[in-house]
Each structure stands twice: as structure tokens, then as C-alpha cells.
């Protein structure tokens, strides 16, 4: 072999290092995800939905950011892919397709037949807004709602679970009884009651409600993690060194119990999107004119089941693909982070 000795050395060295921390660490996790076909597919779907969500966010806010100076100009026109006959209207303001002969009469305006036209690939909704645009913009609501409420649940659950697990005893008892009680009310019911309690149907209240409703689940997981981490020697060492409890929890306990939480959080994003879609479907999530898949399905289901079945199909497919992405990615992450699973 014509390999230089130094090169060989460094290779074996790095090889040995890899061997030692072979099954932990970010690089290993990423490598595992890259190997796994389903996880990669999940990663692609998640990246795509995130991209669409961010893109529509920039696009729909552009006119507001520039005080209407370039109100007719959107990023969408820069990309031939999104090139649209008129322009992609910001959510809720796309009423310019409304034909003049049906002013404001929502019920009398029949949506375009299935399949739509070249101008409107998926047809239009009951007010004449392009359905494809609304489905695309719906990504924004679902993805951000999923991310934010999972984050609320995760941080709330981490604090409660870490405190309960670390201190044990009475603190643990009291916190866990409260958590169990909240857990015992079906999430959807709790969220709706909570939403009404803080002031009526709105997507932000729904997000907050979903986040709070999922605190118990995260708290239980992190607590059991903390219970096992608490017995470790390095915690005892920190205690002996006189480190404050709060610092021990934040610097040692939480980071060391975080890997399983990450997996769970990823899977939970899918569940959250599912629940918020259900909330919007019932009318307690996103309010019109915000384009939201659940709310679009609600309108389609109530009024257009017979006249245009496709209105009930597209948002559902969008929900399904988005959630599937997070589920696939979460499953892949789980396998990648689990050192006991072999390929």
C-alpha cells in the first residue's frame, strides 16, 4: 500500500477515536440518518415544509415590511416555479379574483369545477381565492403552530419534570399529582375549554393551549430521565463542590437527559399539527381569513361535499404529508440515537 506512514497513523488514530465514541455525538447521528432511507425521506419532507413555511412568511410580510411601497411585488414573481398569473395574494387579501357579478355573496359563488384551470391549478374556494395558494400558505400556520406549541410543551415539561425528578419527595409528589390530573383530561377537550377560558377562538390561544396540554407528557418523560441521571457520580461531585441546585439542573441534569426528549419532541410536532388541525376543523384554531388546512377542510366539509369534492381532498393531503415527514424523521432520529439498534 502506497500510503504515507503519517497519514496511516492519523487514520488509525481517528479510527480509534470513532470507535470509542462510535455511537454517540452529532456526527454519528447525522451519519446514521443519512444512511437510513426513511429517515432521509423524512428529513427531505421536513426541510421542504420548513422552506415553504419560511418562504410564504417572507412573501406575505413583504408588503407590510415596506409599508405598501412594493405592495404589488412579491418574491414569488422572482421564481419561475411560483410564477402566477396575477400574484400570490397575502393570506386573506386575495379577493381580487372575485368576479364582479357576484359581489360579496359568498354562497352564490360556486367554486370552479374539479381540477381547476391553468390559472388556478386546484380551483378556487368559495370566495374565489386560489386554492393552491391557500394550501401552500397553510403550511405556514401548521408548521409554526407545531413548532411553537411543541416548544412550549417541551420547555414547560422540562422545568416541571426536572424539578420534580431532582428534588423528589413532596415537591415531586405534588407536581406529579397536578401533572397526572391535567393528563387525565383528553387534550382536545382541555384545549377547547382553555381557549374559551382565555378569551375565545384564536390560533394563538390554541397554540398556547396545545403547549400547556402537552406539558404533562414531557414532564413525565424528563422526570424519569432525571431520576436515572440524578444517581450519576458527576451530579454527586457537583453537589459536593457546592454548585447550586438550579445550576446542577440546568447544566448537568437537563442536558444529559435530552436525547430521548428530542426524539419525542420531533414525533410530538406531528401530533401537535394533527390536534391543531382538529381544533381548526372544529372552529377553535385558526380563524378565517387565515389560510389553515383544518379550517379549509371545515368549510369544504360543511358546504361543498357534493359540489366540489376536491376542496376536501387537497388540504388533507397536505396535512398528511407534513405530519408524515415529522414522523419519519422522528423515527429515524430515534433509531439513530439508540445505540442498541444495529443496522
Amino acid at each position, binding site marked *: 500500500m502506497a500510503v504515507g506512514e503519517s497519514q496511516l497513523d492519523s487514520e488509525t488514530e481517528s479510527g480509534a477515536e470513532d470507535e470509542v465514541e462510535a455511537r454517540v455525538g452529532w456526527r454519528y447521528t447525522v451519519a446514521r440518518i443519512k444512511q437510513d432511507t426513511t429517515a432521509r425521506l423524512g428529513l427531505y419532507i421536513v426541510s421542504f415544509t420548513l422552506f415553504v413555511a419560511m418562504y410564504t412568511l417572507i412573501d406575505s410580510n413583504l408588503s407590510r415590511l415596506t409599508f405598501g411601497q412594493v405592495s404589488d411585488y412579491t418574491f414569488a414573481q422572482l421564481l419561475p416555479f411560483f410564477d402566477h398569473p396575477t400574484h400570490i395574494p397575502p393570506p386573506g387579501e386575495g379577493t381580487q379574483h372575485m368576479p364582479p357579478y357576484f359581489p360579496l355573496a359568498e354562497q352564490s359563488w360556486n367554486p370552479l369545477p374539479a381540477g381547476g384551470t391553468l390559472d388556478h391549478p386546484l380551483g378556487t374556494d368559495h370566495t374565489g381565492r386560489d386554492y393552491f395558494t391557500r394550501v401552500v400558505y397553510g403550511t405556514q400556520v401548521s408548521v409554526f403552530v407545531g413548532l411553537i406549541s411543541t416548544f412550549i410543551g417541551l420547555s414547560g415539561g422540562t422545568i416541571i419534570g426536572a424539578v420534580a425528578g431532582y428534588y423528589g419527595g413532596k415537591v415531586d409528589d405534588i407536581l406529579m*399529582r*397536578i401533572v*397526572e*390530573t*391535567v*393528563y*387525565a*383530561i*383528553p*387534550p*382536545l*377537550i*382541555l384545549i*377547547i*375549554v*382553555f381557549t*374559551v*377560558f382565555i*378569551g*375565545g377562538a384564536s390560533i394563538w390561544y390554541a397554540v398556547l393551549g396545545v403547549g400547556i396540554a402537552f406539558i404533562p407528557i414531557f414532564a413525565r418523560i424528563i422526570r424519569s430521565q432525571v431520576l436515572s441521571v440524578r444517581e450519576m457520580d458527576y451530579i454527586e461531585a457537583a453537589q459536593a463542590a457546592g454548585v447550586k441546585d438550579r445550576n446542577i439542573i440546568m447544566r448537568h441534569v437537563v442536558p444529559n437527559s435530552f436525547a430521548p426528549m428530542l426524539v419525542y419532541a420531533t414525533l410530538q410536532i*406531528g401530533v401537535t399539527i*394533527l*390536534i391543531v*388541525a*382538529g381544533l381548526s*376543523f*372544529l372552529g*377553535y384554531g385558526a380563524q378565517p381569513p387565515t389560510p389553515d388546512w*383544518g379550517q379549509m*377542510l371545515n368549510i*369544504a*366539509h360543511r358546504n361543498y*361535499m*357534493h359540489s366540489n*369534492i376536491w376542496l*376536501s*381532498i387537497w*388540504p*388533507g393531503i397536505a*396535512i*398528511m*404529508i407534513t*405530519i*408524515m415527514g415529522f*414522523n*419519519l424523521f422522528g423515527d429515524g432520529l430515534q433509531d439513530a440515537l439508540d445505540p442498541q439498534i444495529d443496522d
Partner: protein
Amino acid sequence: MKLLKYATYRLLQSIPVLIGISVITFLLANLGPGDPVSLMLQGQEQNEQLVRAIEQRYGLNQPLHERYLTYMGGLLEGDLGQSIHYRRPVADLILERVGPTLLLVLSAYAFALITAIPLGVVAADKRNEPSDHASRVAALIGVSTPSFWIGIVLILIFAVKLEWLPSSGLVYPWRPPSTYRSIDGHLELYYQSLRHLLLPMIALGTLQMATIMRVERTQMIESLQGEYVKLARAYGVPERTILRKHAFQVAQLPIVTIVGANLSTAIGGAVIVETVFNINGMGQLFVDAIQQNDYQLMMGVTMMLGVLFVLGVIVTDISYAYIDPRVTYGESE
């Protein structure tokens, strides 16, 4: 006897949780922004005397903790207060509506278990073969699809396009056929109720089916690698018998846990599925209560659904203890 003792123990253990549920729902319902008095007087002239009289009648002039104690006192006697919107006792309304919801949830679970367990076993047996991949894709779709959309798609296919099945309502098998004018004879009644139940059952059961199938598959794979399976193989027990008996029985335990843990999802799902299929169950009652700002009814329904969930978990715990001989019934020995 031991089982009975365990059941009592679990029931007693759930009392703090039940009290907690009542406190949470009471606070959420009573501290909310809606004013029940003005709601009751909708369209009428509000005079001081009338408002006083209503407050007196519903005990709204008392301090919060006294109202809670009065409410709990009534609750123990089976009195959940009066619904403001329906002007009837909440307990009566719930009793009327709990049947359809139970029917829906239980049949959805039956559907999920009957389909998921064989599919999971087949997938584990034919691991990494096409049928395994197909079932995994199906499970993934099932986990990722909202129940209400499955309901909508089912209605579109089977009710709107094919016109095979009805798209809304339920026929209850326990009602005599005389209350349904077009149905004569009990067989016809059962047939009709099955026809009505089929679509909502599938819509609600798909998520459960997918979850159970995933667990069943992993459990069976694990179980098939167990020592006892190796032993059975060494003795020359046919592979079919191993699959059906040796490996299968052990793999069923976690399924019980999953069924219990997913019960709250199923109850929440029932609310939405009832809306899609226009079924007059607890879910519709809940949605009505919220829309009408009927705080008494909302409290009653929320508590009832919480109680249903807690009872469901206890039942699964007990059946777990019954199936698994290793469980010590929570006693310290």
C-alpha cells in the same frame, strides 16, 4: 379476590385525580369571560330584580369556593346542575348522549384490534418482505392522517360517489325498531346500525389501528427472538404453532398498555368524528355547550369525559394485571 382488591385499590387511587379534574374544570368554567346571566336573558330586558333572582336560583351570588362545594355536593348525588341552553338537568343530557359515544369508541377499538393484530403478526413474520413494507407504510399513513379527514374521504367515496353507506347519523342497536319508522324487525335494526357505524368506526379507529400495528410488529419481532421460541423450535414445534401460541401470547401485553394510553386520543377524536358524521354523542354535546357558553353543561361533559378516561385506564390496568401473572397488584410483599 386479589383482583377485586386491586381494582378497589386502583379506584381509590384515582380519587385525587378525579377531584383535581373537577377543580380544573370548575375553575376554567367559572372564571371564564362569559357571563351566564346575560346569556340567559338574551333578548329580554335586563332588570335588576330578574338578575338577582337568577343569581339566587343558580347560586351565582355565592363566593367561588362555596359554589364549588355546592357543586361537588350535588355531584355526589348525581346532580350536575341545570343546562342553561337546554333547560334540562345536565346529568340527563349526558346519560342520553353517552351511549353513542361509547358505541363509537368501543367499536373503533374493536375494529383497530381485529385488523391491527393479524397485520402486525404477519408483518413480523414476513419481516423485510413486501407485505411487511406495505403494512409499515399503511401504519405510517394511519398515524399521520387526521381522523376527520379520513372521515371526509370515506364519506366522499362511499356516501357521495358510490352511495353505498349513509354519510351521517347513527342508528342505535339498543333502541327498539318502533322508534325508527322505516325499520322493521331487530335484524334489520342491527343491519342498519352497522351500516351507519361503519364509516365513523373506521375514521376513528385508523389511528388506533396504526399505533397498535406498529407496537404489535415490534413486540412480535422481539418475542420471536426469545429463548422460549428457540426452545420450541429445537423441539420441532411447527412454525405456525410457534407464531400463534408461543410468540403471540407474550407479545400481547404491551398492546393493553397502548390501548389504555391512547384512550384520551380516542375520546378527543370522537368529538371530531361525531362532528363530521353528525352523531348526537358527547362530542356534539360538548361542542354545543362551548358554542352556547353553557358553563354548567361544559363542566359536566368535561368531567364526564375525564372520568371515562380514568375509568378506561383503570380497566386496562386491571386487565393487564389479569393477563400478566407477574404483576403483584400494587401490593408491597
